[in-house]
């Protein structure tokens, strides 16, 4: 279990700044799909109740029907839960020293990577399209020096604010490093 007050490989004086998950709109998509997949069959069942009640009283068709309905609703419930788990376990942790990206892809793939703030060169916030603009969510790309790959915060709320926080932390980290007394090089 992840303890936010005790992060893995926590450094001395490292402070937790922010924990980010995808915007609640992602959750709304799961809830919407779950709602439609639940309500439409229920509505059809009520609408065709006369036929359905006759079918469900048949000695062979009745059990098949009930088992099929049960399997259908259990599958929808499990599917919604799996999607929610995927949403819930995807997160980005910003601390005063680093950025941690934890990504869950399905049940069998999990990637955890971290980026030292000292190696961050640039951070870009991106809000694209009608939905992202309306609901204030988008992407933040964190570019590191000398690396082609970028750290990608996907569909997070208020990307501009996050970008500002990252850049502020990078500046603070640089200032902290320059204030520290330079270590003496060994003389040859």
């Amino acid at each position: 279990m992840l303890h936010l007050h005790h992060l893995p490989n926590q450094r001395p004086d490292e402070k937790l700044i922010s924990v980010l998950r995808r915007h609640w709109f992602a959750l709304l998509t799961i809830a919407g799909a779950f709602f439609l997949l639940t309500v439409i069959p229920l509505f059809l069942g009520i609408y065709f109740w006369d036929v359905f009640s006759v079918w469900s009283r048949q000695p062979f068709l009745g059990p098949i029907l009930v088992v099929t309905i049960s399997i259908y609703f259990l599958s929808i419930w499990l599917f919604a839960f799996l999607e929610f788990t995927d949403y819930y376990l995807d997160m980005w942790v910003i601390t005063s020293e680093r950025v941690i990206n934890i990504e869950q892809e399905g049940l069998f793939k999990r990637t955890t990577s971290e980026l030292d703030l000292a190696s961050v060169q640039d951070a870009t916030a991106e809000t694209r399209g009608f939905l992202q603009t309306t609901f204030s969510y988008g992407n933040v790309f964190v570019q590191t020096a000398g690396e082609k790959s970028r750290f990608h915060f996907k569909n997070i709320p208020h990307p501009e604010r996050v970008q500002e926080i990252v850049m502020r932390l990078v500046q603070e980290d640089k200032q902290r490093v320059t204030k520290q007394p330079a270590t003496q090089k060994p003389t040859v």
Partner: protein
Amino acid sequence: MDFSLSALNIPVFVVLIVYAIYILFYVLYSLFNLFHLMKYGVEGVQLFLIVIVFTGGTILLVAGSIFWLLSFDWTVAIPLNQILRAYNNDILPISEF
């Protein structure tokens, strides 16, 4: 002894075997998912609530299904020719019109 396909009987409890296999798959997958949540989720009330809601929903669905399934006679064996004759007035009362 003559073999006739239509004279074969299918016991209704075969449906229960299929259901039991599905429930086994469901339980295994759910437990694996819960294990993931407990192992990698953030410690707190939120995680506890998620686990409770999922488990509660599952119990409700399975209990409702079992309650409904109990109303059937599972000892009945249906001859294959009766099953094949699906289009009759009992099953599709609309055909009366």
